[in-house]
């Protein structure tokens, strides 16, 4: 800024405040498709953007890149790559208006309304004043707990997928993939391509018993083609896929795992080295603060973190959130026909959920629910039915550990049949943060 501009604008206090407000960035948390789409749309409309991503680069769950030096063994459907390439090039064009901070974790909003961030490289927590925020932190995986899921050798299918994408190597030894949802097929196919086809894929749902839902899925187009391509890979590699089949428990035997499987009324045992489990996705909402709709600094959700609608819809949803912010801030926002496309994605997800709907066998008392604190189903069942949020946390010791309930929260909600009461006010930090970094906190004044 030139000196002239400075003097001009400093004439009145009002102008000063206006300048300060307009110069403040809009915060976007999450560098997945939704967050990047939102950041690009805001920057293209002329706003400054602060884009925060906890990982060392953008991409999100689907465009996760191999670590430096690791082979790229799987590149995903061409459509997703095209969409991402397009976003990336638009990002290039407006790069000067986007302050990108990777390896930086959004920690939440504190009681004074500060947006807090943990700069993991610098080892420092900082706050930044922002005009508005879009939180696009993606999904968390659900699992239906059974005895032994916490054993080494068992991991979430999504977690295994991340490892596979980052290291370029599948886990060694026989693998079983189990649970429910389209990710089972995707991960199994990716493992097969990477050279270690799973022993079996066990889907609890029985889609063939839901012809109506299947019929609705058949009209889906791109996602259907994606599923078909996975199925083709699995058929080629002769990976058996069983429906109506679920894991009841797993135990350690020698080098590997003994997996107890039920299909209908028949039980059988499988031996494997790894068991990958997954039971669908859920918005990652744990501790995300959502101020009242009229709040001075609006906070909006976008992408899988708002509603699980898939990768294509995540881009649209990021644009939708950006439009909403733009109109809140008095800018002209393009009224693109986003809602129609989003509702198409929603119908697809609903049909998918209906096709795969199945009830998991209830956990035994000994089944682990919270790994962080070693809490079991019996501990949960011992809580009164009307237990308050605080009783669940303090007396049940659920959601008290390092993951702050991000992992066990959805599991408990499923078992309770209703969402867990949330801590009020929402807690920060959203993620564990080093004592030294937080002690190093610098206030907004020195930051901006």
């Amino acid at each position, binding site marked *: 800024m030139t000196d002239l501009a400075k003097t001009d604008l400093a004439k009145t206090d009002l102008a000063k405040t206006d300048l300060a407000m307009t110069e403040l960035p809009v915060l976007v948390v999450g560098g997945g498709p939704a967050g990047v789409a939102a950041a690009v749309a805001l920057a293209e409309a002329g706003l400054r953007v602060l884009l925060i991503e906890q990982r060392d680069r953008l991409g999100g769950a689907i465009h996760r890149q191999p670590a430096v030096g690791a082979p790229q063994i799987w590149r995903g459907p061409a459509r997703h790559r095209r969409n991402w390439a397009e976003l990336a090039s638009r990002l290039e064009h407006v790069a000067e208006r986007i302050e990108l901070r990777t390896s930086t974790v959004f920690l939440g909003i*504190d*009681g*004074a309304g*500060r947006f*807090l961030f943990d700069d993991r490289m610098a080892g420092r*927590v900082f*706050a930044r004043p922002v005009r508005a925020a879009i939180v696009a932190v993606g999904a968390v995986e659900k699992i239906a707990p059974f005895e032994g899921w916490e054993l080494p050798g068992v991991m979430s299918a999504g977690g295994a997928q991340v490892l596979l994408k980052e290291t370029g190597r599948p886990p060694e030894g026989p693998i079983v993939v189990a649970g429910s949802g389209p990710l089972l097929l995707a991960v199994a196919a990716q493992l097969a391509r990477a050279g270690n086809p799973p022993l079996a894929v066990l889907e609890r749902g029985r889609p063939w018993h839901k012809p109506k839902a299947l019929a609705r899925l058949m009209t889906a187009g791109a996602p259907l083609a994606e599923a078909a391509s996975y199925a083709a890979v699995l058929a080629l590699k002769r990976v058996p896929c069983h429906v109506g089949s679920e894991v009841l428990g797993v135990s350690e035997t020698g080098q590997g795992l003994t997996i107890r499987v039920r299909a209908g009324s028949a039980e059988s045992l499988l031996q494997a080295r790894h068991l990958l489990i997954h039971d669908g996705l859920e918005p990652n909402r744990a501790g995300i603060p959502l101020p009242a709709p009229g709040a001075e600094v609006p906070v909006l959700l976008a992408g899988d973190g708002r509603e699980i609608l898939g990768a294509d819809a995540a881009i649209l949803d990021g644009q939708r959130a950006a439009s909403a912010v733009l109109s809140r801030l008095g800018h002209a926002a393009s009224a693109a026909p986003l809602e129609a496309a989003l509702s198409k994605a929603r119908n697809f997800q609903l049909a998918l959920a209906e096709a795969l709907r199945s009830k998991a066998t209830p956990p035994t008392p000994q089944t682990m629910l919270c790994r962080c604190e070693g809490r079991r189903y019996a501990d949960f069942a011992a809580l*009164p039915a*009307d*237990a*308050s949020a*605080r*009783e669940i946390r*303090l*007396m049940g010791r659920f959601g*008290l*550990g*390092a993951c*702050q309930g991000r992992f066990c929260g959805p599991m408990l909600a499923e078992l309770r049949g209703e969402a867990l009461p949330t801590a*009020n*006010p929402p*807690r*920060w*930090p959203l993620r*564990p*943060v*080093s*004592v*030294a970094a*937080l*002690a*190093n*906190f610098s*206030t907004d004044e020195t930051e901006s």
Partner: protein
Amino acid sequence: MARSPSLHVAVIGAGIVGAAAAHFLAAAGARVTLLDASGPAAGATGASDGAVSVASKKPGPMMDLARHARAFYGSCEADGLLRGLFHRRSTFLVARTRLEAELVAEHGADLAAAGERVLDVDRPTLLNRIPGLGDGVCFALEIPDDGHALGYEITQRLLQRSAVTVRRNAPVSEIVMRAGQAVGVTIRDELLPADAVLVAAGIGSVGLLGLGDILIPRKGQMVVTDRAAAGRPAIDGHLMAASYLAAKRGIVRDNAHIGLVIDPLVTGQFLIGGSREDHRADQATDAATISAILRDALDLYPPLRQRRVLRTFAGVRTASRDGLPIVGPHPHLGGVTIATGFEGDGICLGPFMGASAARMILGEAPGVDLSMLAPQRFSRAEALA
């Protein structure tokens, strides 16, 4: 022991004090309904540290009461009621300046005069006990007979071991009086009849009894870290900085003071606190205060550098105007007893005070003279409405 098996007591507030009173009332044969706007330990009891500490108390009645209360923990631990929940451990009073050293020495003399064991610890011994302690620590005293208990665990145990009816999500809006005598309480549209009412509602007591001139909220922010040890305290005692004593002895009176304590929990985690923010009744934490607490904590105990913060939380202490709890019969409302105003000492005092309030309601004399805590003391100056 009970006067009448049909005596029905409505206890308002399921914090440690209400839970203890309810437990001992029921144990004596009374019928008890324990009402909480949210649930057990929803107030200060579930958002506090758990120092069962004589070392921290202001000389005078508080120091004496704390000695009784700590002994009560010891006997409840021994008779099984609180088995496994009360842990003996030393408090180290530590000074980092000459002025602080004088304060600690003076406090040590007061403790000794009250009958408390007080041990001198030189720096080499201290470093042996707490390796890594900050260079600035120039003087310390060890109070070896203190202990620790978690308020919510005590509350839960007291309720598990009794036939008290607990009603969650039951906000009391009014105590219903007839002819100068309490006949019940109102919960939304419901009238719950009761022969006696105990108000143990922490800061909620202000609204119920119109005590706005007598009680103030004092918010405290705290930090919980990850584990530095597995299943045992990571250091051999509770570190209490002179800044905490200064607040307790009424030397500092600023509204955002930090009284530093570093508490090694039995889980191997650290609990670090805390701020003292007068007239703040919210449960929000802020980065400026939390980071100030951590900077002070790192100065006192640098190995905390290796820990991660898992949570921050805030609780609201209920402080009375004269610094003493308020325990006893309401001066004007027949059948209403009060037990609140425990400020930052209610985990230590709670079980003992709850048991004492129960005895008062049953018409028995408490084991110790509690006349200085009587609500009556405020009605001399003005009507305790």
